[in-house]
């Protein structure tokens, strides 16, 4: 579904990502794990169209989308849940949800009901300003907002960042549910490698802009190097 070929990204004069290639298969959950500054975010941001890669290609459903501006990437069915949630604090919860479907012209009622069923907390807080939500609720809102564009591929940048372990577990459960029930392909990047690899079908380990290891989630979890470097065991 998504094919990344020899992607190179420069960021403030630094080679943030070097010759990275990987595939995301339709219907799967893929994760990129790696330390801070390994280039994970840069990869997602270049797929989403907010950063232009220096070289390499990004193919989505057989179409070359390299360098396409963000507004058009969303239209193709790719959405990004950005790092730190980035919900719109002085829009209401419902407005945040609606704005996720900005490009859609059809009725949103069914989708709103769907995301409210996924996250009942948001329904209770529908009229509240999004900035007043707790961190976990904001993360749920960011996911709900992303789902409103009816994505084929949902990319998530550090969804567990700054959240309590219980909430992290809830969020990962819902990610799996969205993937299984609605067939949304997930590309996830995480510093919380343990949680990410347990959830993912396939994982890639990124180190200073280069892919060092790849394998199924279970394989990587069992790998000695990964254990030492990322799982603290």
């Amino acid at each position, binding site marked *: 579904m998504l094919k990344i070929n020899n992607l190179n990204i420069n960021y403030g004069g630094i080679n943030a990502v070097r010759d990275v290639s990987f595939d995301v298969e339709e219907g799967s959950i893929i994760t990129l794990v790696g330390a801070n500054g390994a280039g994970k975010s840069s990869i997602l941001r270049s797929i989403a169209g907010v950063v232009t890669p220096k070289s390499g290609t990004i193919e989505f459903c057989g179409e070359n989308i390299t360098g396409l501006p963000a507004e058009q990437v969303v239209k193709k069915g790719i959405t990004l849940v950005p790092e730190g949630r980035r919900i719109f604090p002085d829009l209401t919860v419902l407005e945040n949800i609606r704005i996720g479907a900005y490009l859609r012209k059809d009725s949103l009622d069914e989708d709103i009901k769907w995301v409210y069923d996924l996250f009942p907390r948001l329904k209770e807080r529908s009229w509240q300003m999004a900035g007043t939500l707790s961190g976990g609720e904001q993360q749920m809102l960011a996911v709900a*907002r992303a789902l409103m564009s009816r994505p084929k591929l949902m990319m998530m940048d550090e969804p567990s960042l700054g959240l309590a372990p219980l909430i992290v577990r809830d969020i990962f459960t819902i990610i799996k549910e969205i993937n299984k029930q609605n067939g949304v392909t997930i590309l996830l990047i995480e510093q919380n490698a343990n949680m990410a690899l347990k959830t993912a079908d396939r994982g890639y380990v990124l180190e200073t802009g280069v892919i060092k290891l790849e394998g199924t989630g279970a394989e990587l979890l069992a790998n000695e190097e990964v254990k030492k470097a990322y799982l603290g065991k």
Partner: protein
Amino acid sequence: MITTLLTGISVGGQYALIAIGYTMVYGILRLINFAHGDVFMVSGMMLIWFVSSTPITIAVPLIIVVTVVLGFLIERAAYLPLRNAPRMSAMISAIGVSYLLQNVITYLTGGQPMTYPTIPLLAKTVGIFGTKQTMATIVTLPMVIVLVISLSFLINHTKVGMAMRAVSKDFETSRLMGIKINNVISVTFIIGSALAAVGSVLYFSNYSKIVAVSGALPGLKAFVAAVFGGIGSIPGAVIGAFIIGICENLIKATPYSVFSDAFTFAILVVVLIFRPTGIFGEKTVDKV
């Protein structure tokens, strides 16, 4: 006294129409559009020229359209290319546009004051509270109220309004939603320019002649009003504008009328000392 108050309210309303343009552009771009007062002046000049060849009923809508186009083009030509530059660069560009407009008009008019046409409908005098007032004085307030209500409906209850609020907070995330940032910014300039054009008709109809720098002082006062009300806030700008318009005219009614402009700016200094973010200034809640 009643005359002073009514004049104050109407001048305040005229400042409000300009101030909204300043505050909206600031809200979305964090840019002080110094050229806004001059766009207002160009709008006045346009009416003078159009009136010589078309009836006033056509000329007025026509200058609104032309002013909107001017505002749109200024943004595309002078601010859009600097979107990712430091904020100060766009500000300097705005000052440049301001002088450009003034100089072009000075060139075209040969620096001569131009006679502003009498708009029969606005110049008509009517009796109110036992005083005689021009229509321009009377209609400003209801007009501002209608425009501000429509504008807040647009911002709070339409899709483009929602996009404007989103863009004003976070460019990148707005793009991720599929919002075309530049179109939303253009809409902001279009609204600001349209209101300035309406304001110019009402404001200049109080004057017999206008010159190339006629936009500078009302522009500056509207800017003060926007800062006074809390720049970025539309209700703030409107209330600020009314306060300034009324205070200014109250001073003009005293023997110290020479100081009326100085007074306006003194208010600004005092307000900024006690409330640096203005009356309705942005709350700085950073819970993200």
